[in-house]
């Protein structure tokens, strides 16, 4: 039987907002209300701009036009880009942690391969089709909603996924949908779409801020979705990267604003929330000839929210001297990013770390639990 538009919307609420999952009751109580906002920083976040290792004496000599001064104090070695004042305040309240000199084990310096690895969580690019978050949510039996076009690879592997992005084209009467769906019903790849199609009842502007505002609104509902994903594109600053201000600083400012907006809208639920960043790689330690940086390797990860266990910068700092850089140019990886994301999915979804290792990260075993997130 075919669903009317009205009933159909209720079903969407089921697949997106977690209604109707008997398994849900089995989840332990303290993870049931946890929420995750993942921010994908596409283009390659420059860890040395975002979280400059001001205690490393080599920083000054390898960075000139991109050197960030007046950075905010984090600890005796690391500082924070001065535009990220909100994140800094959260850090002071024990609501933010940073992992530095981290990345995926991929060293090929290609955006497209790097983004594939950061989303699939595999050792090699294009090795598998599904994404690590999709697999984790599938294991936890959770639905998800992506605020991007198209559905990012990171969410694939979970059948209960849909996406949303505001359109400026006017809507169509529901009877038209019903008739088109009668055609789609006969086709496997389109049949699934019918039940996921979303109705834009919420008028919103197409800006990262409006998207996060919408995402947050949904995430803050008691039976809302557990995960939101936001794409931020524009970190690939090969030329005129800027320092305290400029292109890279603008992106960090956007990130800071998104976090601030998320917190203010989550209200009390902030205590059960975690914002985590993912990027495909860092940028060259040394500045290039056009006042920018090229594709590198290790970068940093931000974790912000009430679920952060303690303010700290976790790092096994590899150093910036030419001999300690990978191939003499990139910051080396000393903590595998999968360590961090394993902890994120285990603790936010209440999953057994052994299961995460087996079913989400394809056998990868973290070096250790870095204690970044409350149990």
């Amino acid at each position: 039987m075919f669903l009317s538009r009205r009933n159909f919307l209720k079903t969407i609420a089921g697949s997106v907002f977690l209604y109707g999952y008997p398994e849900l009751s089995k989840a332990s109580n303290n993870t049931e209300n946890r929420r995750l906002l993942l921010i994908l920083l596409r283009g390659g976040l420059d860890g040395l701009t975002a979280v400059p290792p001001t205690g490393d004496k080599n920083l000054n000599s390898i960075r000139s036009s991109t050197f960030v001064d007046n950075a905010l104090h984090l600890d005796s070695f690391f500082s924070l880009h001065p535009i990220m004042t909100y994140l800094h305040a959260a850090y002071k309240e024990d609501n933010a942690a940073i992992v530095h000199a981290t990345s995926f084990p991929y060293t090929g310096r290609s955006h497209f391969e790097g983004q594939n690895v950061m989303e699939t969580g595999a050792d090699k690019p294009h090795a598998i089709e599904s994404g690590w978050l999709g697999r984790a949510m599938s294991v936890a039996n959770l639905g998800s909603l992506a605020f991007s076009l198209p559905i990012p690879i990171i969410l694939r592997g979970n059948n209960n996924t849909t996406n949303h992005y505001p359109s400026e084209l006017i809507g169509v009467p529901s009877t038209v949908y019903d008739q088109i769906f009668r055609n789609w019903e006969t086709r496997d790849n389109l049949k699934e779409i019918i039940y996921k199609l979303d109705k834009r009842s919420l008028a919103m502007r197409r800006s990262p801020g409006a998207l996060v505002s919408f995402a947050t609104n949904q995430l803050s509902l008691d039976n809302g979705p557990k995960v939101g994903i936001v794409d931020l594109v524009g970190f690939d600053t090969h030329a005129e990267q800027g320092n305290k201000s400029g292109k890279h600083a603008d992106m960090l400012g956007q990130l800071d604003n998104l976090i601030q907006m998320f917190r203010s809208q989550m209200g009390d639920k902030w205590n059960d929330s975690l914002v985590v960043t993912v990027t495909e790689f860092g940028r060259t330690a040394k500045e290039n000839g056009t006042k920018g940086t090229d594709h590198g390797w290790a970068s940093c990860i931000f974790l912000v929210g009430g679920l952060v266990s303690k303010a700290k910068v976790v790092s096994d700092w590899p150093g910036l001297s030419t001999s300690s850089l990978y191939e003499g140019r990139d910051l080396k990886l000393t903590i595998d990013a999968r360590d961090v994301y394993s902890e994120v999915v285990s603790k936010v979804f209440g999953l057994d770390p052994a299961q995460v290792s087996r079913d989400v990260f394809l056998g990868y075993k973290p070096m250790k639990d870095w204690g970044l997130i409350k149990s």
Partner: protein
Amino acid sequence: MVKGGFKRLLYMAISSEWLSRKLGYGFSFDEKLSPPDKWIENARNQVTSIPNFDPWRLIAKNPEEKNFEKLDIPTFPFVNSDQLSKKDLRYPINLGQAVNLYKQGVNEEERLRKLNTKSMNKNSPDLSKKVAALNSNYIRYHRFPWLRDTVTRGIDNILGSSPVFNRFWHFWINHFSLNKDDCRGELFGNYYLTLRSNLNKKFEDLLFEAIWHPAMQQFLQNSQSVGPNSKSAKWSRESGDDGPTSINENLAREMLELYTVTPSAGYTQADVTAAVYILTGWGSFWPNEHSSRYFNSNRSEPGIFSVLGKSYDDTDLERRLPALCRDLARHPMTAKNIARKLAQHFISDNAPEESIKEIEKTFIKSGGSLIAVHQAVIDQVVKAGPSYRKFMAPALWFWQIHRASRYFPPVFIPSFNELLYIDDMLFEIGQLHSRSPQPNGWSDSDHDWITPEYLERRIRYANRLAVYLSRDEQFDPKAYVERLHGTEENLVNLVRRSDSYKTACNILFCSYQFLEV
């Protein structure tokens, strides 16, 4: 070429309607198609030379008129303003002219910026006038040329007589993709024309012409990359001016990774760096010291560099890049890469390995002749047949529904208080060429386009088009669906029994039989 009895057998299974949708932009409701064998012959001929490209005539009321300015064509946004006249509707055919327009835009923008900063300081009352001037500069040098590109190519897709050639042209535009955020509008059109005019040559020619073109040089920032031991870098260091004295590897990396050999060729960072040095000196269209191809040897890094085992000496700095392009084009991994991409684009995400091999073999055997390669693609599409399906990316679907209904408004009439321009529509359904988000161009994987949000937008757009079609109902969805899939009961019945003309159009355009081919 498909031969003999086998050929006869094949043609029983395929229709010209299917061919026109698979290899072109589909068929119009009033278009008579030749039988399949003739259609294929014509398609193979289309790709042997560069067809005439003069789309505005196709929509002119007096197409025979020799003087372009006297052509009677519908009003186009922005034209007939202070800055633009009808003659600007044509692509800048001459590269020098495109570069000059580009410079003119930059200069004017700089001037207006300075002026604005000044007036802001003085709290000048005519500030708003100056902001308006800046906006009109943006329209003249950015928005207008992007729109002109979409519309010009669009008219030709919908009404023109070389759709197969255009499909290959668009494939290469996406292969050597640019986007508007990093490249100024006035360089676009000439770049696309340059790609077009090389489609009867070899891949190595196309590659070189794409790489040195100012649009690409600016897009991947090579025009700012300077050899650290070049004369220019030395002068900059001595004089202490702010000029660039070192490299930027953006273009070199993409040239290896995306345009030619791909990472599976196993190149190293040393290969990338060598390619960066070979690329220094190109893109010097600003300031004026350069060769006719905008090469400035003063900015080029001296020395002998080796990429993938082939070495390039510095007896003539300007000759290193064409030599590198030639060698990369002839690398076996390039043939593999191009063959796979073409097969995925034209046949299916799961194109038969045999077809990919055949295209690859043709690429190698013909020395990368694009005519031979394009004909091989046509032959393999025919050979693979209709059981290999491809879900149409939004732009292709957009042109196909417009060609089917032969409806092409260069400007959407601003009723409903909605968007006006075709660029906005393509953006809404997810694929505006000038907005390709990254240098790897738009995805060619079905699953990137089969998502709830994208499909919902197609339904909305189809509805929009149906509103226009319903004004005269010249396009008959019921007749069309029978020509499209006469035997597929489900769709034919749905269209026949739909509750209104508009719904019938919408069901037809959004049915899987139309979305896929």
